[in-house]
């Protein structure tokens, strides 16, 4: 059931994001964009992530999350003067890196070896992504992003999912 969206910007964004269905490829860890999509994605994510509309920014993050670290680093440089866009980006990086807080979680004790293995593989892939992303940033952007992510890390996800300051 799709009825007419009356907000023209949201309508346009929906049409743009819908085109990514054709650019998506699937790997064993989920869904990623094909490499040639990076340039197109950059153009679209730029205006999405800088939009005052929270839904459009969220759409921008979803699209950007499937891009390459190099594309993401370039995007971060291009939104250097947009405080809100940089905050959104840091929120994305913070979430993706919280996996490291669970490296020593309860799974080894509960005998879920297969889950632990999958988790370890995912953590390794995320660690590699983090390395590539920070390597692709220049010194100023790297320091800026680390500071923003650190500020979001005042709380940690505990062994049972609970949070503490």
């Amino acid at each position, binding site marked *: 059931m799709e009825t007419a969206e009356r907000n023209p910007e949201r309508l346009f964004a929906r049409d743009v994001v819908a085109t990514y269905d054709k650019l998506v490829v699937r790997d064993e860890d989920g869904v990623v964009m094909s490499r040639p999509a990076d340039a197109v994605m950059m153009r679209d994510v730029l205006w999405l992530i800088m939009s005052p509309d929270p839904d459009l920014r969220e759409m921008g993050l979803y699209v950007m999350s499937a891009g390459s670290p190099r594309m993401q680093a370039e995007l971060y440089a291009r939104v250097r003067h947009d405080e809100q866009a940089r905050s959104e980006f840091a929120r994305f990086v913070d979430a993706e890196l919280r996996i490291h*807080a669970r490296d020593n979680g309860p799974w080894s004790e509960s005998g879920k070896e297969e889950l632990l293995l999958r988790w370890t593989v995912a953590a390794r892939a995320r660690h590699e992504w983090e390395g590539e992303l920070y390597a692709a940033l220049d010194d100023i952007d790297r320091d800026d992003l680390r500071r923003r992510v650190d500020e979001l890390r005042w709380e940690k*996800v505990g062994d049972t999912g609970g949070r503490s300051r």
Partner: protein
Amino acid sequence: MAQLTTVIVHGTWAASADWWQDTGTQNFWAYIKSLTSTLHGGTGAYSWTGANQHADRVFAAHDLVQWCSAHQVERLQAIAHSHGVNVCFIASQLGLRFENLIALACPVRIDYLPDMRNVDSLFNVFSEYDNVQTPTATLGARRGEGRTLGDSSVLVNRHVPTFTPVNTAQSVGHSDVHEPAVWQGNNLDRLIVVQ
């Protein structure tokens, strides 16, 4: 009667967001708390990484099961948003029982379907003006149009396209579904089991 515990389960990239947490502000958490004293809050509240990864959702579901066990939850009510709903759906497949599950703007996908044998009631709140829900479902394995589940005696889809049925000028987007104004304007308070 056994004690009811209500939890809010946030969605992707929202682990550090304010709306679902007991932060002392007039946010969604405070609004739900005003409706039911059973809402859990403070430090130790359930949370997950919020990463846009399948593995994180699976582990979040295991975490939710473990969190309920650690907190000796006897009866569970969850209000979940976006992929947080899918975390709950996976948890239901792991055997976690939901007395009431309020799903807000869930990207409905064939790889995250609830085990309805473990869900006593499910309200699926959606808006066709939610432009995040469909792409997040599409960039994976969308079920149907990515917004609704099949109605049954225990599963009700709640169509909430506008802030109020009278004032149709303001459409409901993805993050609007956890706005108290949308809840009040559409009588979503009635979905809550109070105690």
